[in-house]
């Protein structure tokens, strides 16, 4: 198994299947996973978060604790970062304390990759800038697997701000590894120019795509990035691309609706997502812990990574 997860592309199909299989075992304990396993006793996981996060950080913390690893939470606010310490120095400081794995979120694309070059501990990318968020893709693949037996030929429509979305990139590449067909839908201003080289379909016409889709994956409109005039108004975005009850009615009977959260109600998704009967958004969150437990088990439960020559 891999020692670090920087990109979903670090994993081949068999690697992703293995993670989904182990996650299913952890999941079987149910959402009330009350049992604590001694598996990772003596291992230390550092959550190094330079950006706000609720579900990702909490979910990594719970996953590590349920496997008996020690968890240290490090957020940029209230740390030496406020005194001007660089990422490199912070990483060295943390490493000197002897950690096995660093879970890193950073506003700059590629920060976890740099971190990986500086430290001997494993690194998990928990979201870097507009680049990738591989563990979100893994838990989404797991959620899709609960509803569809096979990814081969599965039609997934990713709707919204692909340009700024790290979730979208991991999602696309993960889905392609598994054999799914991906269509990107949204305003042309929010489609990355390089998308054509990704082997995906790109269209602005959401109403043409919805009736054919097995999975509708809604991306969060990143309001904090909306000053640059990508869309005229949020109301117009909601009218043209938002998934309301009327659009949800166009979906196939067994199609599912997903969203990585946090939601902008009334923008990319109906004000009351409960009116979307095929939404699996809450199970996405619930599945996050089991999937991250599987990942930690496979990354830290093998031969001591620090004793080995780096694979990459």
């Amino acid at each position, binding site marked *: *198994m891999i020692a670090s997860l920087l990109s979903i592309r670090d994993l081949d199909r068999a690697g992703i299947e*293995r993670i989904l*299989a*182990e996650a*299913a*075992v*952890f999941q*079987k304990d149910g959402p009330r996973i009350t*049992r*604590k*396993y*001694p*598996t*990772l006793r003596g291992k230390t996981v550092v959550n190094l978060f330079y950006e706000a996060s609720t579900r990702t950080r909490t979910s990594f913390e719970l996953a590590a604790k349920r*496997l008996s690893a020690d968890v240290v939470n490090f957020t940029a606010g209230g740390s030496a970062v406020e005194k001007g310490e660089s990422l490199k120095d912070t990483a060295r400081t943390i490493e000197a304390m002897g950690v096995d794995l660093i879970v890193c979120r950073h506003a700059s694309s590629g920060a976890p990759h740099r971190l990986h070059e500086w430290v001997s501990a494993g690194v998990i990318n928990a979201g870097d800038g507009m680049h990738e968020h591989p563990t979100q893709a893994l838990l989404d693949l797991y959620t899709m697997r609960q509803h569809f037996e096979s990814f081969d030929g599965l039609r997934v429509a990713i709707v919204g701000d692909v340009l700024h979305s790290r979730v979208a990139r991991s999602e696309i590449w993960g889905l392609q590894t598994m054999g799914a067909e991906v269509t990107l839908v949204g305003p042309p201003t929010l489609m990355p120019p390089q998308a054509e080289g990704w082997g995906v379909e790109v269209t602005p016409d959401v109403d043409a795509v919805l009736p054919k889709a097995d999975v509708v994956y809604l991306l969060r409109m990143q309001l904090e990035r909306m000053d640059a005039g990508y869309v005229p108004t949020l109301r117009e975005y909601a009218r043209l691309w938002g998934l309301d009850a009327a659009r949800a009615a166009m979906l196939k009977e067994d199609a599912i609706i997903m969203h990585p959260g946090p939601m902008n109600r009334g923008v990319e998704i109906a004000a009351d997502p409960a009116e979307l009967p095929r939404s699996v958004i809450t199970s996405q969150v619930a599945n996050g812990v089991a999937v991250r437990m599987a990942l930690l*088990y*496979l990354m830290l*439960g*093998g*031969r*001591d990574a620090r004793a080995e020559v780096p694979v990459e």
Partner: protein
Amino acid sequence: MLVGLLNRGPDIAARLASKIEQIEGARPATGSLDIGLYRDDIGLREPSPLAPTSVPAVDGKVVVLVDDVLYTGRSARAALDAILDHGRPRAVQLAVLVDRGHRELPIRADYVGKNIPTRRREAVQVRLAEVDGTDEVLLGIEQPATEARA
């Protein structure tokens, strides 16, 4: 209650339960236990694939752990930890089909199908009709690449 250790244990437990039912007229409860997360060699080998555990409520019950081969005793040690995480049984016992010796921990079986003296470098493999298509116990010269879960 009979609780089989994966992979071969649950099938042996089910057969024992059927035999007991024939004799006593009542079938004991059965369960299956995966000990992958409780092993003492985590960090020394690649992570083993996990399998779902399903164990009925154990509080106050006599639980008999069932495994195919008893060897070093390390699996039994892990199984003890795993079963105690499910509650507080009145007693825990151990039943094995084959005891091949070479214990590394102070553990003994309460019920043994057959004692087979072996050398350490020999491999003992139990095959069951349910999973392997045939009932047999194989003794080999070399340990197979994937070390027996004994």
